[in-house]
């Protein structure tokens, strides 16, 4: 069952109850393999963020099963979920990803330190992660001394520090200009090509296009998906 880094099977999430119940997600199934970047596209209110929260165990589905690296999230208690988030899952949000009181390297080392790893080890792992995204030179800066794009890269480093292999990104370029945004997506793409699994939520097709597979979400349902990416050179051949 560990073929997929992330698998959602028939996941439904209802907010509230009774007359005020809102169906945020309805029977959604999704799989992300290691080395694969899957994008979820949809307008605001389509349930994209809920999907992402469910995938990381920040929220629990009303029905259906979420599995991360073969672990069923509904079988974990709160501590187990937290441990899974520390070791397996990394989030990158639109902005304000970093804790202002910590330097870049400390931010990246945070999940490892929370996991009880010794400071030096955690720091070394964090430096490696920062090098992987190309901002090792910013290690000692505080978040307010970095540009938005740099902050997002540090957040990506944190999302994939140590043993973490699943990156959940929620509009990671939403607060950036298009050029910086592209650089951030390029970083995510590179990390996935290096073996990480990525789930990217966005409402912009241009950004979703970086993914291997794109899923269209509307009103909590998957209405469309591109399927696996055809061979890269087919474009010229098609002409």
């Amino acid at each position, binding site marked *: 069952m560990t073929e997929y880094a992330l698998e959602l099977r028939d996941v439904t999430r209802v907010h509230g109850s009774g007359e005020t119940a809102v169906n945020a997600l309805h029977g959604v199934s999704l799989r992300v393999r290691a080395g694969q970047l899957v994008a979820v596209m949809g307008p605001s209110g389509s349930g994209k963020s809920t999907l992402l929260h469910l995938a990381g165990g920040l929220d629990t589905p009303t029905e259906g099963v979420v599995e991360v690296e073969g672990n069923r999230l509904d079988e974990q208690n709160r501590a187990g979920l937290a441990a899974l988030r520390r070791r397996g899952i990394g989030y990158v949000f639109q902005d304000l990803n970093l804790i202002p009181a910590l330097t870049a390297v400390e931010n990246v080392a945070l999940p490892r330190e929370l996991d009880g790893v010794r400071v030096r080890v955690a720091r070394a792992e964090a430096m490696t992660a920062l090098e992987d995204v190309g901002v090792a030179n910013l290690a000692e800066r505080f978040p307010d001394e970095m540009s938005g794009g740099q902050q997002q890269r540090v957040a990506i480093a944190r999302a994939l520090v140590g043993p973490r292999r699943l990156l959940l990104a929620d509009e990671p370029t939403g607060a950036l200009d298009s050029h910086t945004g592209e650089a951030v997506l390029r970083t995510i793409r590179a990390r996935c090509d290096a073996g990480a699994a990525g789930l990217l939520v966005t409402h912009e*097709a241009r950004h979703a296009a970086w993914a291997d597979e794109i899923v269209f979400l509307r009103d909590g349902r998957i209405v469309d*998906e591109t399927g696996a990416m055809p061979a890269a050179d087919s474009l010229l051949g098609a002409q």
Partner: protein
Amino acid sequence: MSIKYGLLALLERAPMYGYQLRAEFERSTGATWPLNIGQVYTTLSRLHRDGLVEETGESDEQGKVVYRLTDSGHAELTGWFATPVTSDDRPRDELAIKVALAVTTPGVDARAVVQAQRTATVRHLQELTRLKTRADEDADLAWLLVLDSMIFRAEAEVRWLDHSETRLARRPPRPAATPAVESDEQEVVQ
């Protein structure tokens, strides 16, 4: 946009002969706009006729004629760069007409048309992005700009399709008799 201005722009850099022009053209626009040599020579002869290019009189070892811009050719090119592209210059938008027809034609599921088109466009977008991934930021600036242009256009199309889908979703559904029109081929658009 036409091959005419493409060739004029290339000749502005340096005098060239036909095959050279074709290679440069493809290099600048990526492989997105393939030309055959016949198109190049037809266009060149038309430009020569209109006095926009002239033969330099030299030829290479294989005896191919080298062309260069005339003054009026230069003026023509400058005028082209200075004039913004208007929508009138573009070909009629087949996609818009297709969706419009799908809505009004009984028995056709317009949403399916839209979604199929979107899948195709997004896949195209993915391919363009993949090309961009491979490009070298410094060396291929012109090529990247062309790619970006295509990416943004495709994205606009996706957004328009998204918007259309929302509109269609809000309309009360009409009884659909015939199966949805499958249309996932790129050529239909072009």
